[in-house]
């Protein structure tokens, strides 16, 4: 099993240890705003355990994915909603 995984976050390639979450990958790029709230505020992860839904991003074209509960896979394309 490979030790690292490479994925794309907003077009930038990120290398993470195998088993990392997409949320960690996004934060590692320095991006702290994952989505925009209904009134236009920037939001990022809060609970880290999949229940607050603030960490939602688009993964491989699919919106509303909880990045803190998603393990990074090679070649994933992650887009935050900026």
């Amino acid at each position, binding site marked *: 099993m490979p030790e690292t995984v490479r994925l794309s976050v907003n077009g930038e390639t990120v290398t993470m240890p195998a088993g990392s979450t997409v949320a960690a990958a996004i934060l590692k790029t320095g991006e702290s705003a994952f989505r925009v709230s*209904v009134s236009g505020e920037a939001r990022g992860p809060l609970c880290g355990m999949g229940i607050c839904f603030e960490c939602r991003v688009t993964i491989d074209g*699919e*919106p*509303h994915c909880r990045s803190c509960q998603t393990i990074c896979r090679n070649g994933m394309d992650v887009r935050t909603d900026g």
Partner: protein
Amino acid sequence: MRLLYDVVIIGGGIVGAACADECARAGLRVAIVEAKMIGGGATAAGMGHLVVMDDSDAQFALTRYSQRLWDAMRDELPREVEYDACGTIWVAADDEEMREVSRKQEFYTERGVAVEVLDARSLAEVEPNLRDGLVGGLRVPGDSVIYPPCAAQFFVDRALTRGAQLYLGQAVQEITRDGVRLRDGSTISAGVVVNAAGSWSPSLTPRVNVKKRKGHLVITDRYPRFLRHQLVELGYLKSAHSLTADSVAFNIQPRKTGQLLIGSSRQYDVDDSAIDASLLSRMVARALEYLPGLGRLSSLRAWTGFRAATPDKLPLIGPDVENERLYLATGHEGLGITTSLGTARLLVDQIVKRTSEIPVGPYLPSRMTSELVHA
């Protein structure tokens, strides 16, 4: 404790609230009695679709009249009511349903309602998420969508500014000759009592021919560009006709928030408000037959509600047959949001004895004879 009002309205759902607003506007002293919360019953559960319907001339007259009233007040509605003129498309899946489209088009055009027939290609253009192979549809641009609990609150607030009194959290125990007695023993005295208690109406007036008809709904997360119009299958009317069988029909509404509200189902003789997994499944499966891409979207909540259904699918608006000081404003089935405004006008017309803008005959409680019972 005795207080004097011209009218006491039982029920703070959208119908009761609209009636209170109209009563207050007509200068009547109004009390509204609501056992739980404003807009908490069927008003909260339903779709908030403001729609013209052509099941019958009487139904058309009431929905059309009401829709005009909604249109006239659209700029006064607060933001939370989320008025959205998205229009409806009645979707035809086969030639038989397309003939229904033609019939509807004639019916509406004759009566001055703007409609547009869509063929298969134009249907796909306006609603690209519909599956291939549908035959066409009828677009009704004048239909719209609101968020009903806030509309009910708006009507109540307006009535209060005109001096109406709200008894919130108080249940009516009994309708008396002089008004109502509340569960805590106190009485409210009024010249006229209006039973606008929706599916609870028969518990206060047992002869009222209203039965509960349970429905399910599901709402999704926000997908702003998925749908533009409220979509209804033409089989909707076939199932709404049935008085006995459980049925589902495809009905989906885009909300201003970008969420999609998925319906619809109908069940008789069920008192339990729990989700029926099997019926919910059928309802969702039906929706997926029309919108395959809907399946992947995230659903946030499912719930049920009880419509107040009458045997002839028209509401009861007018004086009770036995108690001349009792009026009924109930039995709106799935059209309570739309027809709340028309109901309020017709009700007050009858209370103050002014001429109605449409004939009230079809909606009078006296039309229900003892032979007409639910199947």
